[in-house]
């Protein structure tokens, strides 16, 4: 079976810091795969390598069968990446921002309009999309960005803390949208999150990483069973060392 992501023994060194230290993980198509770990574990570095922003120091990463180093531009046409602290162009309106982004992957004008309309529904921003992004709250901006990441129905969506800064209701809405895009549009999702409840409800498979290495992997149910824990937070604390 073709895998959506094959990361093998990935090492990434920044100066004297080993951000990733031989990390390996595999993501199947149409799977929601969660990377969890404490701050500085290497989650964002891993997501950035998969998104072709960084090159691994050693090891190999294949996304949808393509190598992140040699076939980066091909991969960029198939994926969409939502960084954790991403922003949008503050002097553009929400509509203009979505349209600007859609034009890079879609040629047909009618299709661009439909895509932007779909994004408007995902974001739930409605009339506020006509306003400039600089007038948006943090949560509104995040909804806009999640909509941008999913609107083009990428083969792989790489989402770093997708619900960061959102209130409970909007978090639930965004999680529902992510599930819907996986089930209906066949999108594969690689995400990282600090919210264990979110990971438990959303992910088919979870990799727990610490200090750039994989320390546990499995479905949320498997991980809970192995660690004899009632929820993923307990698993996390036990595996990382606070248990």
């Amino acid at each position, binding site marked *: 079976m073709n895998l959506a992501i094959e990361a093998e023994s990935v090492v990434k060194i*920044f100066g004297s810091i080993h951000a990733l230290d031989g990390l390996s993980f595999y993501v199947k198509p149409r799977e929601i795969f969660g990377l969890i770990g404490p701050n500085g574990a290497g989650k964002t570095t891993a997501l*950035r390598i998969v*998104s*072709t*922003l*960084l*090159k691994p120091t050693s090891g190999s990463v294949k996304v949808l069968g393509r190598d992140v180093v040699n076939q980066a*531009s091909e991969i*960029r*046409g198939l*994926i*969409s*990446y*939502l*960084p954790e*602290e*991403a*922003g*949008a*162009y*503050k*002097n*553009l309106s929400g509509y*203009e921002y979505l349209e*600007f*982004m859609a*034009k*890079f*992957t879609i*040629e047909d004008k009618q299709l661009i309009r439909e895509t932007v309309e779909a994004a408007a529904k995902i974001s739930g921003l409605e009339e506020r999309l006509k306003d*400039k992004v600089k007038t948006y709250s943090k949560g509104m901006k995040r909804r806009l*960005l999640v909509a*941008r990441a999913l609107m083009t129905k990428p083969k792989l969506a790489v989402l770093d803390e997708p619900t960061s800064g959102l209130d409970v209701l909007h978090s639930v809405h965004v999680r529902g949208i992510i599930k819907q895009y996986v089930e209906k549009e066949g999108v594969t999702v690689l995400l990282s999150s600090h919210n264990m409840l979110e990971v438990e409800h959303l992910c088919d498979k979870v990799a727990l990483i610490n200090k750039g290495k994989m320390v546990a992997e499995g479905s949320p149910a498997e991980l809970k069973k192995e660690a004899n824990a009632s929820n993923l937070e307990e698993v996390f604390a036990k595996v990382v060392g606070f248990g």
Partner: protein
Amino acid sequence: MVKDLFNIIVKEVKELVRDPTLILGMIIVPLILFPLMGFAMQTSMKTAEESMRNISIAVIDLDKGSVAENLTNFLITLNVRIVEVDDSNLTEAVNYVQQSNLTGLIVIPSDFSNNITEGSKAELDVYTVFRGGGIAESTSSSAISALLETFEERLVFQKIGEKFPEDPETVLDPIKTSEKSIIKGKSVDVNPGVLFGLMMSQSIGMPIGIMMLLMFAMQLAATSVASEKEEKTLETLLTLPINRFTILAGKLTGSIIVAVMGAIAYIVGFNYYMSSFMGVIPAETGVDLAAIGFAPTPISYLLLGISLFVSLISALALAVSISIFAEDVKGAQALVGPLSMLLIFPMIFMMFTDIYALPFPLMIVLFAIPFTHPMLASKVAFTGDYLTAVIGIVYVSIFTIAVLYIAARLFGTEKILTAKLKFKWLRRRRRMPAEEP
């Protein structure tokens, strides 16, 4: 690629044009500030003219002779208000002049009329009240001496007239010179002084305009890259299916478009400012530069345009390459700021000197700075020295290709995300006042 480039350019221009701080600094300030400065200049000139018309002079006449009387009458005919002052005490008279807001004081000594009639040198004591350093003050202070010089000329004319009653004017000014200029080996019926004035107005304006344009462009390009980092939009942009060079080219083009708008605003404002107090020299002299072969030809305009274009690209590429190392907009501006020296340095030399007359090492330094060349091209455009302009274009093009290559390389690697020059000393300095108790 063209579609993506156009998409980025439109976004860049929208972002830049809608930035209120940028619009304020680039377009509104020059369009309001310069005309305001011009208005202030015109007002002070008018005040100076008014003060020339309302001159009041105190006179202590110790002579009471006919020439002294002629002098006071002459001043009265020129609308000068004469205030006769008591002749006993000079200190009191000086005090009175100061307090009564008079322009000055003329003391006519007792032998004044006698000396002039006898043909000896006569003396006058003139006191001018010093009130400040403005234009109005300086004109009123020179007014008294100007009036006395006119009176002196009248006296000389009278004396000459007594000896040569037929044509005293020819005796006073026996030679009439007719000044002409030689341009490109041809004699032209134009005073070289007038021509020089015209050239000066061009050679000062162009380097300033070019410097302004390049400086705006550099700041814009640096801001455009750094704000992507500051607003955290760069990461998303770099994962889109677009060629990195397209992103770079889009940013450069967007910056050029907005910089040109800003430069036009500056030049319009600056021209208004200049014309408000310099007068319209070319219209008055009636010299048609094109007719005497002293105006830019289509070829020189083309060369100047190419020179400006390649310099603009090199300035932008330089600013982008440097701003990649900044974490935020402030950092980028701090990094690009020193580059403005590369613009100011040649501009000053271009405005006031002939580059070829400078000491050799200095000349080499100036030629090595790429931004000297468009300014030089603006000068040689008038003289028809196309070769200098072409050599400059070739040099700047090579420099531009090298810098663009570096910028593209940096944009293509992960350095654009990971390179961070922190300005710890700058931040510490900014924070210091707040930390003080």
